[in-house]
């Protein structure tokens, strides 16, 4: 068995490195720079039932050790994805995870029903999306709201389902427990933190929506703390992410209890960074005499 081989639910991953939704396109853009099949898995761009054009105006602002983004879930819609982008992702010999969000519970359910019939290895439910019908507060803030959406999707989606938590949740542990009770097979965390930037010369917010999503190394300590808290509280596997940029960062998340990890913003630093992370993890294990990640998983 290869040192980094990881079992996530019933999936065997080559290693615990998965690319995070929205940061890796559908994999194709990265293939000139790396052998994408060497990854543990790829998460698709966040899909919604219907195509979305996303936000207009400024979409990105770099911050100290991080970035704010306001892409607004631009995507071609679930049906288009299944027909056009999924076959491209499938050419890579790696786990294919479809990330999906929605503005209403009905949209989540309809999208999940379509994905139930598609050739994906796992569904990642993004509950950080604003709930259009109930004042725009994200589904991922209150545990009872999240329970309802996960419970409804569970009824139509029969494959493995991971629920991706927002760090903006009122109580991250209660949220994870609610999602597990509602039928999640795994929990991933964290999505972006809410942040703002102001253009002082224009005396205006940088983003049209004022608020945007903070990611990158700046959020790593917060993400690591949340992963540690959640991993202790749930039985299902936890996939950790938020600011991972080196093999040591990934090892920290594994030690905090994560089964696997995702890499997002770091993919922009250099396109083949995930392969460097894999090699750094292997070198660390070698130097520390670790045969399998299970020896250190949740060791703190």
């Amino acid at each position, binding site marked *: 068995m290869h040192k980094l081989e990881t079992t996530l639910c019933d999936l065997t991953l080559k290693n615990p490195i998965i690319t995070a939704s929205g940061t890796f396109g559908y994999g194709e853009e990265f293939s000139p720079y790396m052998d994408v099949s060497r990854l543990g898995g790829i998460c698709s761009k966040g899909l919604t039932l219907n195509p979305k054009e996303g936000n207009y105006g400024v*979409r990105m602002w770099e911050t100290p050790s991080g970035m704010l983004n306001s892409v607004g879930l631009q995507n071609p819609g679930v049906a288009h994805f299944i027909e056009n982008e999924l076959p491209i992702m499938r050419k890579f010999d790696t786990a294919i995870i479809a990330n999906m969000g929605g503005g209403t519970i009905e949209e989540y359910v309809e999208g999940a029903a379509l994905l139930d019939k598609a050739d994906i290895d796992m569904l990642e439910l993004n509950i950080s999306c604003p709930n259009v019908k109930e004042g725009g507060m994200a589904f991922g803030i209150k545990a009872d709201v999240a329970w309802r959406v996960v419970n409804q999707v569970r009824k139509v989606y029969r494959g493995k389902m991971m629920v991706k938590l927002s760090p903006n949740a009122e109580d991250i542990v209660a949220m994870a427990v609610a999602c597990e009770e509602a039928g999640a097979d795994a929990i991933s965390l964290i999505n972006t933190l809410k942040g703002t930037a102001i253009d002082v010369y224009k005396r205006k917010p940088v983003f049209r929506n004022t608020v945007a999503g903070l990611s990158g190394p700046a959020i790593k300590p917060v993400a690591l703390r949340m992963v540690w808290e959640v991993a202790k509280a749930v039985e299902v596997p936890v996939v950790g992410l938020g600011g991972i940029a080196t093999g040591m960062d990934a090892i920290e998340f594994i030690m905090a209890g994560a089964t696997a990890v995702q890499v997002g913003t770091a993919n922009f630093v250099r396109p083949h960074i995930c392969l460097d992370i894999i090699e750094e993890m292997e070198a660390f294990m070698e130097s520390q005499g670790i045969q399998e990640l299970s020896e250190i998983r949740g060791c703190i």
Partner: protein
Amino acid sequence: MPCNTVPIGSNKEISPGVWRLEAPFSGDIRAGQFFMLKCPEGAALLPRAISVCDYDGETVTFLYQVVGRGTGELSRLQAGDKLTLTGPLGNGFPVEELQGKIALVGGGIGVAPMVYTAKVLRQMGKDVHALCGYRDVPFYADELEQAAGALDIATETGNHGAKGFVTGILEPSRYDAVLCCGPEPMMKAVTGQCMAAGTPVYVSLENKMACGIGACLVCTCADKDGKNRRTCKDGPVFRGEEIDFA
């Protein structure tokens, strides 16, 4: 389009706030393409998109203006220091399709891509004329004049060339195509002039980027149909009339 970390050749301030950096590179580069540049040990998280100013098959030259943290770090690199380059990226100008007399219009740091573009076009035997607008002091004008064969200058202060914006010295009806790179208000104005004259116009847009390779969707610009187009992958060059300038 590889991603390599290489020791740079030179890095000099050629005009206040404007720097020229040279790095080894081999492979094809199209006129109007760009690279993502990052100091491997720098504090700036993301690489910066910088246009190719010149290329001779061995050395790629970039001109950049120091505007913030990323370009500030670039300017502190010294000969032999390491730089990570990803590229060349983007579509570039459709040089093969262009016929007749071609105007290259640059504004400020937007003159950079016009140097290599002029070279490529003239190597293909095409007739080019460069027009550049600066605020006050021209930079890289000799290099551009040499590459293009002909150069007209406008400055806002009137200290060099004609007084005013470059739009004041551009007569689109004299050309079969106009290629343009500069501040957005200038590209908007040039596009308007060209559309009125019926001259095809190509603009090279600038936008904040993260991945530079079409994956993250942070660099989009809106086209006239309200569709969001990726500046890095669908551009940076677009037909002027396609773009919904703010």
